[in-house]
Structures are given as structure tokens and as C-alpha cells.
């Protein structure tokens, strides 16, 4: 472990890749939270696919593979696709999801055509552009990471600066509009930040898998908290952890690509979060439901015993477990429930194996019957009849 850690500090390639992956994880997780909350996860996917022709065009125009021009090109076609999606949705009868799928594949197709053209005509200079498809983290150099960090840092700063404005945009845009905030401009601004978060990760993760960086950390973080601030922070942490561990695992294992490994790390965090997160996790919900149904079953048996006791006008009249089985329809585990009740001191068992309520049980059953408004269902006892 210490060995690996020192390797991380000394190995230039590994350190560069890990820093780049951490950067894109932090920015993608933080800004992705808003995309997830606003129901724009698929928009992230469309933007990243639509970025591919932009990368190719930027190279065609500048002839350079410097990070900034390529990212600008990616951002340009990403935004263009977003605008067309919004335009098509607003002006035609094509629904939003169809417009999205359409632009995603059309732009991606154009990107593939351009890449093929470049491969055949641009000679050796274009080598490596196709790595934008699935990402090639090993090719990251310091200049790339610095560009990523500066762009991502600015995007996060803007998000923090306009925290309140973006929050109301995400939660209740109509109300925000009534307060006088230019909701459309804020929408454009936040979407632009999302585009930045996407384009800085393309070279590392690739256009195909990039949307996972936007969606996965945020979806995992939402499981653990009910506060926007905590969710954004946690998503950034999840993104960073996945980025670093993905870079690490693929850097120290032969033939393991970095981008997909990062995505798999994020996937693992999502799965764990879906299962064990308190309140929203599957395990917690299952456990809670089980506890509730057990409690309700105990209460039902208690109420049945109470009903029977009142029918027999003897509060401690003892019954076979089978009698209760017949009453508590659908449950064949009455004996088990009775044992639980006995442990709680509500019922006890006679020598002949019959069950009856204890004083405590009678009190509890009466309280339950009252709170559930069931008392009129019970036959009145001797006392109540005489007081009528």
C-alpha cells in the first residue's frame, strides 16, 4: 500500500493521470448533481456524444492537438446540439427524449465520419484523436491537467458564487422568475457549466462513457443526504475517489483502460449506495418494512386474543395457537409471533400449551384497540354493559 502510494507520488504518468481523473471526477460530480436533480442526465449524454465532431473540427481548423482548442471545439458542438434539442422540442411536435436521442446519434455520426476522414487524409498528425471515443488517460500530460483544473475550477467557482440562484432554478424556476431572476439566462449558464464539466473529461474518459461521470457520483450522493450542499460535496468526493482509484487500478494493472475503470469504480459506489444508504437504501427500506410488518403481526395477534377473551368474558381465557392461526388469515407463524409476545410479557403459556393474555397484555391490547379506533368492534365486557 505504501509502495503504491509512493509510486503515485513519484511516477509522473500515474500522478498526472490520477490528478486529471480526480479533477474530472470532482467537477463532473459537483455539476452533475444539478443535472441529475433537474432531470438532465440524458442531456449530459447527448452533449458528450455531440462533442465528438467538435473535437475533429477543431483539429481540422487549427491542426493542433493542444487541449484548449479541442475542448473549445467540443464545447461548441455540445452547446449547438443542446440548442437544437431545445429548439426542436419547442417548435415541433417531436418530444424531448426523441429530439435528444436524434441529436445524440446524428452528432456522434458526424463525429465518426470526420474522424475517419481525418485518419485517411490528415496523415500522422491526427494520430490519437480517435482516443476521444473511449478515452486515453495515459496520453494525459501536465498541460492537459492544468487546462482541466483551471476550466473546472472556474466552473465550480461560478456554481458556488450563484449557489442560491442555481438552487431556485433547479427547485422552482417559475417562482424564481416571479422574484425577478432571469431564469432563462441562469439555465443557459448552468448548462454551460455542465458542458465545461463534460468537455474537460472527454480525453480521459471518452465521449461514450462521459455521461457516467456526470450521473453516477450524483446519483450515489443523493442516496446519502437530503441536503443540496451535502449532495454536491459528496458527489465531488465520490467523483474524486473513483477517479483516483480508477487511475490507480488501471495504472498498475496491464491492459486495463483508465476511463472504463473509473466508470466501474463509480458504478460500484452507486451499487453500494443504492443498497446500504440509510433511509433511501434498499436494505434499509427492506429492513424497515420487515420490522413494521412484524410489529403489525404482533399487534394483530394481541387484538385477536383480546377479542376472544372478551367474547368469553374472561380476560385470561387460554387458546390453542391453532385457533389463532385460523383467525389470523394468511399467517402460519402464529406460534412464532406468540413467543415474541411472550418475551415482551404480553402473553403467557399454560401447562397445556394454550396461550392467554397477561395483565400487561390486556392493558396493551386495550390501548391498541383504542388508538386504532377498534374498540367498537369488540363485544362489550361485563363492566361496560352494566355501566350503559
Amino acid at each position, binding site marked *: 500500500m505504501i509502495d503504491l502510494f509512493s509510486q503515485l507520488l513519484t511516477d509522473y504518468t500515474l500522478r498526472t493521470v490520477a490528478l486529471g481523473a480526480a479533477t474530472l471526477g470532482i467537477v463532473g460530480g459537483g455539476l452533475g448533481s444539478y443535472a441529475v436533480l433537474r432531470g438532465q442526465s440524458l442531456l449530459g449524454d447527448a452533449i458528450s456524444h455531440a462533442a465528438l465532431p467538435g473535437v475533429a473540427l477543431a483539429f481540422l481548423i487549427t491542426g493542433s492537438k493542444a487541449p484548449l482548442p479541442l475542448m473549445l471545439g467540443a464545447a461548441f458542438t455540445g452547446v449547438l446540439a443542446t440548442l437544437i434539442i431545445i429548439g426542436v422540442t419547442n417548435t415541433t411536435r417531436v418530444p424531448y427524449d426523441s429530439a435528444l436521442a436524434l441529436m445524440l446519434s446524428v452528432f456522434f455520426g458526424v463525429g465518426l465520419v470526420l474522424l475517419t476522414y481525418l485518419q485517411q487524409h490528415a496523415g500522422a498528425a491526427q494520430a490519437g484523436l480517435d482516443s476521444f471515443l473511449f478515452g486515453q488517460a495515459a496520453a494525459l500530460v501536465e498541460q492537459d491537467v492544468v487546462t482541466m483544473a483551471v476550466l473546472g475550477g472556474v466552473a465550480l467557482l461560478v456554481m458556488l458564487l450563484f449557489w442560491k440562484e442555481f438552487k431556485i432554478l433547479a427547485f422552482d424556476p417559475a417562482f424564481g422568475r416571479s*422574484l425577478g431572476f432571469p431564469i432563462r439566462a441562469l439555465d443557459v449558464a448552468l448548462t454551460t457549466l455542465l458542458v465545461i464539466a463534460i468537455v474537460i473529461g472527454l480525453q480521459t474518459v471518452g465521449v461514450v462513457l462521459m455521461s457516467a461521470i456526470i450521473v453516477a457520483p450524483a446519483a450515489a450522493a443523493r442516496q446519502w443526504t437530503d*441536503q443540496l450542499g451535502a449532495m454536491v460535496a459528496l458527489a465531488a468526493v465520490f467523483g474524486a475517489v473513483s477517479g483516483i482509484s480508477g487511475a490507480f487500478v488501471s495504472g498498475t494493472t496491464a491492459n486495463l483502460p483508465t476511463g472504463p475503470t473509473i466508470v466501474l469504480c463509480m458504478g460500484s459506489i452507486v451499487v453500494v449506495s443504492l443498497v446500504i444508504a440509510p433511509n433511501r437504501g434498499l436494505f434499509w427500506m427492506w429492513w424497515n418494512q420487515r420490522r413494521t410488518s412484524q410489529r403489525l403481526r404482533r399487534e394483530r395477534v394481541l387484538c385477536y386474543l383480546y377479542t376472544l377473551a372478551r367474547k368469553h368474558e374472561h380476560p385470561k381465557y387460554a387458546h390453542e395457537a391453532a385457533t389463532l392461526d385460523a383467525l389470523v388469515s394468511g399467517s402460519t407463524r402464529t406460534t412464532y409471533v406468540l413467543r415474541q409476545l411472550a418475551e415482551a410479557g404480553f402473553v403467557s403459556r399454560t401447562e397445556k400449551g394454550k396461550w392467554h393474555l397477561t395483565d400487561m397484555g390486556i392493558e396493551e391490547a386495550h390501548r391498541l384497540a383504542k388508538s386504532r379506533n377498534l374498540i367498537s368492534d369488540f363485544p362489550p365486557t361485563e363492566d361496560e354493559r352494566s355501566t350503559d
Partner: protein
Amino acid sequence: MPPSSDSNPAALSVRDLTVAYQEEPVLWDIDLTVPSGVLMGIVGPNGAGKTTLLQAILDIVPPAAGQVRIFGAPYEEQRHRVGYVPQRGSVDWDFPTNALDVVLMGLYGRLGWIRRPGTDEREEAYAALEKVGMADYADRQISQLSGGQQQRVFLARALVQEADLYFMDEPLQGVDATTERAIFDILRTLQKRDCTVVAVHHDLQTVPEYFDHVMLLNVRRIASGPVEEAFTEENLRRTYGGRVGFLKQQDMGTTAPDGSEETEPS
């Protein structure tokens, strides 16, 4: 009818307001005057444009034509005097935030750009939650609130706006009878403080009880004015197209005119 030029202009005056989403107008040539200090209910069938009317007045949807004056001036200048309660269903209640935080949003307009709410604002928001009987739920995640509680949180958010004119979109939707009473008590308190409330309402039965003015809307303004003048059987039939069964069993008020004319307070 131009807006009166005296020193006390109407809380709201709408002239020739038309809104169209596609080819068909959603609202057609709406004229409406709401005097200061009244509780006005807007009623009309589904798709009559009730929500759109509020949103066009509040500049949330762009009107195709028309003019809106709030206390005699354009909305842009009077924004700080206006409060808004959107429909409860218009937001995602699973959003990661709590009741107090939602109420704080009512203060965002006053805070302006970038400034965050501080201790004073939190106290103000908490006081508003107290007024609607929700102080105990301040830290509760909003999806864990019942429909009535969510509605009261929205109301508290409008209260901190300290507006003179409130627009409320179905503030009683999905609310039980007790909460309905509680909410209307709050609206009456607002009225006592000289506030004007314009609320979209869906229950015709309770209109005379809750409101003193009413507007009947179905794309066009069918009628508006004091309840006893405008809320007539004839006007309702014209609004709902004769599908108003309950009216036959009800006394529609004492001064119902013959209904052939639209009534409008001068």
C-alpha cells in the same frame, strides 16, 4: 375602462391580455380589475387558462398582447410588492432540501444577487413557519411532508415575501378540511393587513364562503366582481357549459342579475 387615476389605484388591473401557446389562444382578451384589499377567487373548468393567467400576469409566460398594472405601475417596478404561491405539483418534492430552506427562497428576491440568507433571514423564515403551524417541521425533508404540510410551507414562503398582492395557484389542492380552514384563516389575516389575494380555486361550493370577489374564466373572462353579483347560475353555466349540477340545489345569492351582462366593478 382605463385604470382609475385617483391616488388609490386597483391592486391589479389587466387590459386585453391574450396568451397563445400554439395557434389557439389560451387566454383571449382578458380585462380584469381587482380592487385593493379583496380576496378574489378565480374559477373555471380544466384548461380554462387559470394558471396561465397568473403566470402571464407574473411575466412567467410571455403574453401575445395586453397590459398588466400592479398598483398602477408595471409589474417590473412592483415586483417587491407581489407574492406568489405556485401549484404544489409544479415542483419536485424529492428535491434535497428542508422546509425552512424552501421558505428562505421567498427572501431570495430581497437578498438580490449572490448574497446568501443569514441568521436574520433564518429567523424570519422560522417565524413564517410558525404562523402556518409548521415550525416543528422546519428541518424535515420536504418529501416527508404531507400534501397539506407542503402547501403550508409554500404559503409560509409567500408570507416572508411580505407582499401587498398575492397570487396563489390552487392553495387548497389536495388539502384536508382542517388544513383548508387553517389556510383560509391565514388568508383572512392577510386581508386584515390590507393585502389583496387572488387565488385559483377549484371548489365552487366554497366560493361564497371564502371569497368576496370572484372571476369566472374560460379562455375569456365570463364575469368578475363581488361574489353576490358575479357568481350567478347563468354566469356559471356560461363558464362550465351547463355542467354545474350542484347549482340547482343552491341559493345563488340575493342580488343575482339576469346574467345576460358581464358584471365588472367600476
